[in-house]
């Protein structure tokens, strides 16, 4: 029977959203097919409730690597053990989230198996036994459709590409495996610095409030932070705002920044240069607030307000506060 392996990530005892989205999508599909879902969970400690969560997405098998060596991501340690899992189970597809780990581990494993990898997938169509993957290229100015023929392929999925799925409980077979002994010490993780504030991760955020040159100063970003707090959103920025030193590089959205796909993207004082659109054009709903009616951002916006952001944003924040209080 054909198998699909999903390598999931978790945080604070819960699946990362992108892992959950992949599982949901795969489980919807596997319900009508003969394929088996294998889920690989690794970590120093794997919370009990994770098993329930994974089982609720129709997993047939849960393979765990619960070991101190798997506390932090290190490709030299991860590859031999995960490659072994793949060899033993011969899945047809191996899925990762397009996250810091997925992006790094997936191409290494793909090369290990001399296989194809399909990066940053935003849609999958399945017909009988054929998979067709859609992925943006050229900064979203073009879509590539990749059809595979059943051999082993590695896939990373962009967060927020799949909507909500319906749970489908199974009683998966669960077993733990031991990491393979490491012979390669060429890659050492000597420290991990966490960002001071547990800022919301931009790539996984469902709502993003983004600011550009129109914000005029670093201090003014408080306006967007306020709005983001009310919405439970992450704060992004254009390159101009980053170059001006108002925001860190890590918050830059665009061709040379993060690529995001939130449910709602609110662009404030951003003109909408092609290089910015490259990072956010696949968002589900785009709102633009800009005082220049000719700004190109209005071409991609679903809703645009032509006006002064310093007048509009505080009102928006206040009105939303009222709504969320009810």
């Amino acid at each position, binding site marked *: 029977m054909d198998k699909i392996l999903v390598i999931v990530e978790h945080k604070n005892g819960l699946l990362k959203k992108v892992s959950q989205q992949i599982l949901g999508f795969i489980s919807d599909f596997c319900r009508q097919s003969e394929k088996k879902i294998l889920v690989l969970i690794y970590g120093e400690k794997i919370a009990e409730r994770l098993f329930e969560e994974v089982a609720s997405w129709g997993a047939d098998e849960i393979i765990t690597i619960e070991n101190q060596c798997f506390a932090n991501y290190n490709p030299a340690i991860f590859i031999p053990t995960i490659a072994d899992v793949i060899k033993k189970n011969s899945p047809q597809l191996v899925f990762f989230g397009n996250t810091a780990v997925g992006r790094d581990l997936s*191409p290494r494993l793909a090369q290990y198996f001399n296989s194809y990898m399909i990066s940053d997938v935003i849609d999958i169509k399945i017909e009988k036994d054929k998979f067709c993957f859609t992925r943006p*290229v050229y*900064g979203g100015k073009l*879509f590539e459709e990749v059809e595979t023929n059943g051999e082993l392929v590695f896939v990373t999925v962009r967060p927020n590409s799949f909507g909500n799925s319906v749970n489908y409980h199974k009683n998966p077979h669960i077993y733990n495996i031991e990491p393979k002994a490491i012979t390669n010490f060429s890659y050492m993780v000597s420290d991990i610095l966490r960002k001071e504030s547990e800022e919301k991760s931009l790539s996984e955020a469902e709502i993003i409030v983004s600011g550009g040159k129109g914000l005029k100063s670093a201090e003014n970003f408080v306006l967007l932070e306020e709005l983001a707090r009310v919405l439970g959103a992450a704060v992004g920025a254009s390159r101009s705002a980053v170059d001006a030193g108002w925001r860190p590089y890590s918050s830059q959205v665009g*061709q040379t920044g993060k690529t995001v796909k939130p449910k709602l993207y609110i662009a404030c004082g951003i003109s909408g240069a092609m290089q910015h659109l490259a990072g956010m054009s696949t968002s589900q709903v785009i709102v633009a607030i800009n005082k220049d009616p000719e700004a190109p951002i209005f071409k991609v916006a679903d809703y645009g307000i032509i006006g002064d952001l310093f007048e*509009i944003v505080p009102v928006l924040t206040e009105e939303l506060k009222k709504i969320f209080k009810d």
Partner: protein
Amino acid sequence: MKILVLVKETFDTETKIVLENSKKINNEGIKYIINPYDEFAIEEALRIREKFGGEVVIYSVGRRESEVTLRNGLALGADKAKLIVSEKIDSITVSKLLAENITKEEFEIILSGWIAIDDNNAQVPARLSQLLDIPLVNVVTKIDFSDDKIICHREGDNTVEIIKVSPPAMIAVQRGINEPRYPTVKNILQAKKKQIDLIISENNEDINRINITYQLPEVKKAGLIIDGSKPEKAVNILIQKLKEAKVL
């Protein structure tokens, strides 16, 4: 220190994409640039050379004409360039061609951008490092040297990982690592005389195990534009619409 920098020629970021057919992008009149992430890699290589001495060699796989683009890399200060001419530039082919040629070199570091803005694949650094059997630190925002170790800041999701590797190693860089310089007039003139080796690849096996087609995104229908001269009114319309669209 000998540093190899992998450079890919890409379309300029302003390019409007036109399809010839579902399998081919029309490249008439396209302006080409060095992949912006590879520019960070060139800059970092130059800075390392300035500190420790040595040589910076650009390696590229691509069409014959990309020589012109590679000259821009030489104008920034790289010592020489090698262009492996190949029609096929998918990640698997490129990694293989690079590996075949780089194994013949002595080097300490290979630098590259972590992703190319055209194919959005981010696979070559990982694949090449596997083929050469050297460590790769991916998505790096800072490089330091201490004794015989290279210490990298790697970007995680909301974290910075401090990674130590020993040369020979590969490092794929992320924006934020530096601010690339502009070419000086003197360097532009010198670049004209610098050497670009052409390597003609014989590897043209067409594996074709997957089928790739292109599609232009659907043109978005015009959105609703709201006059913001009365902020309260505008905001209320917006909220109403967002509720209807079920994103609130």
